[in-house]
């Protein structure tokens, strides 16, 4: 079970994820970052709950709304911010931007802007884990929109067939860009699809970080012991639009957005810890202030970092032969 220290660490982590999205929004507004944002505000409990339940050797694959997953898995904030701002010291040397990164040094397979594109990749990493007997578990993060891509179905069938150690974490924020669930999907809950591929599917409250943690820990133990994949559908809501500049109100009502803000995952854990006597409002405020201040300092440093040179390095296309890919 989760002890208080772990729960407090998860609370702090969720605050950091939110602070990060707010920082990106600020950078986007004053054109200090290139490309769009895809805010994770409101969904923090999923990244934090899932990644807190993993071992450091476990792997994740992410998608366009991925900054939260990376931070929760252990990304370096300076390097990540540099990439968001197209700096040479970013994870991808400015080549990828926040939608296109990857670093196996902390178990991050990669993310792309192609919806659903990393679901088979994650499944392949799980195939490797099984073949090598490594006991690694792989998390495939994707949204409800991605769930309707053909390749997602193909990959899940193979995962079920071969009992691969992969957990499909579907972050169901109920809108595929602007198209609602009922207008895009024939079933009410995606979790029923697990049955179609021969493994367990479960819908959980994605704004309850403790529940996300517990379910992930259980599914990971199952995967590690050779009992195959799990489909975890985490119900949640993104507070902001799909991308920077989309207020998110052309296809959602203000009342709906407000009602989900009341279900804020940070507020929820914070109030619970306070009610249990493990946290005070002032202690929380102090933590939050620290997180925001630290992040502001890092962002300032990243913004001052140089852009890449204006040059094409054709040797960057292929991995050099002397470097092993493992």
């Amino acid at each position, binding site marked *: 079970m989760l002890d208080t220290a772990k729960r407090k660490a998860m609370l702090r982590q969720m605050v950091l994820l939110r602070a990060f999205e707010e920082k990106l929004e600020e950078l986007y507004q004053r054109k200090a970052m290139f*490309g769009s944002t895809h805010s994770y505000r409101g969904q923090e409990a999923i990244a934090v709950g899932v990644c807190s339940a993993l071992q450091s050797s476990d792997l994740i694959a992410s998608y366009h709304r991925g900054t939260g997953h990376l931070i929760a898995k252990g990304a370096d904030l300076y390097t990540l911010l540099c990439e968001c701002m*197209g700096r040479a010291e970013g994870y991808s040397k400015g*080549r990828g931007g926040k939608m296109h990164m990857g670093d196996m040094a902390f178990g991050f397979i990669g993310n792309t802007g192609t919806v*659903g594109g990393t679901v088979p990749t994650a499944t392949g990493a799980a195939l490797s884990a099984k073949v090598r007997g490594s006991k690694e578990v792989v998390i495939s993060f994707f949204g409800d929109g991605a769930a309707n*891509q053909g390749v997602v179905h193909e990959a899940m069938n193979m995962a079920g067939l071969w009992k691969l150690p992969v957990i499909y974490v579907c972050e169901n924020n109920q809108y595929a860009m602007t*198209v609602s669930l009922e207008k895009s999907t024939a079933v009410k809950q995606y979790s029923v699809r697990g049955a179609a591929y021969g493994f367990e599917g479960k819908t959980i409250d994605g704004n309850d970080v403790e529940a996300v943690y517990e379910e992930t820990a259980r599914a990971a133990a199952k995967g590690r012991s050779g009992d195959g994949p799990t489909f975890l559908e985490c119900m949640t809501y993104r507070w902001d639009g799909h991308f920077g500049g989309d207020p998110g109100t052309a296809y959602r009502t203000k009342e709906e957005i407000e009602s989900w803000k009341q279900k804020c995952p940070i507020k929820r854990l914070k109030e619970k810890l306070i009610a249990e006597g493990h946290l005070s409002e002032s202690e929380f405020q102090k933590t939050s202030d620290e997180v925001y201040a630290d992040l502001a300092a890092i962002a300032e440093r990243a913004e001052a970092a140089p852009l890449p040179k204006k040059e094409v390095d054709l040797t960057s296309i292929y991995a050099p032969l002397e470097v092993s890919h493992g």
Partner: protein
Amino acid sequence: MANAVSVPATKEMRMQEALREALRSEMARDERVFVMGEDVGLFGGAYGVTKGFVQEFGEQRVLDTPISESAIVGLAVGSAINGMRPVVEIQFADLLPLAMDQLASHGARYHYMTGGRVNVPMVIRTKFATRAGGGPSHSSCNHGAFIHFPGLKIAMPTTPADAKGMMLSAIRDPNPVLFFESHYLYGVRGPVPDGDYTVPIGKAVVRRPGKDLTIVTCGGMVLKADAAAEQLQAKGIDIEIVDLRSLAPLDKETILTSVAKTKRALVLDEGPLIGGLSAELAALIQENLFSDLKGPVVRIAAQPIPPPHSPPLVDAMIPDVDQVVDAVMRMAEGGKLS
């Protein structure tokens, strides 16, 4: 007024508006036409082209789809075969490869492989252009890849007028038409003729007449070619610009007529240099006009790297105006021009 020559009235508008006008009028004229794609309904499309359509034509003819590019294109193929005229939006050209099998190995081939018994009258609209912030999955110029698939027609309008005229032709065409819309051209305004104005698919246009050297190009690169031509005019070099408008079928006649006149050709493409459109054009010109040419055909195209995110890397990848000017100056070396 008596004896007045009838000149079609025009309206100034941006490319998105011209596309909207074409789609809207064709949906009103032909009930077989419907639009389908991600966010095309309530949201009016990622670029606003189908804004207001769901209110005007209803959800039966303006279909918001799941994020399922392969099936979207596959269903368009099937509905086209069975009597409809689908116009599909794929938000980024980078996502076309998701639908490659349905588009290139199915849609493009039905007419030929069935001995002409089955036709696929559909349009796939997509946005392209390499730009800062798009990165490897949202800013590809992969149009060159599609010229490898006979059976597909490929349109790439440059002006709002062409966008309208070619869209009407594309919808009425009995073949699948892949319709590339440049990010850089969406915001450019221009006069658009009123009424039923069509521009044929497969017909290039001389965008700027000149006598010294032909630049063959398409899409957003037409603007850069024109900016270069302005600079070169001041240096006494008179550039002719051929805007392809369609990549398939390729209008060989317009290209070769121009180069036969100027005897020098520069091919300018936003897609990657290797194995793409620029190679095809250079080969076409040299095969047909080798003995007339005063020098080799020069190619300027994107560097063969995945489209990057950061502005300096993007600037280093895609052709710029100075590169075109410098290349023409090198081709003109020795004062042989003019």
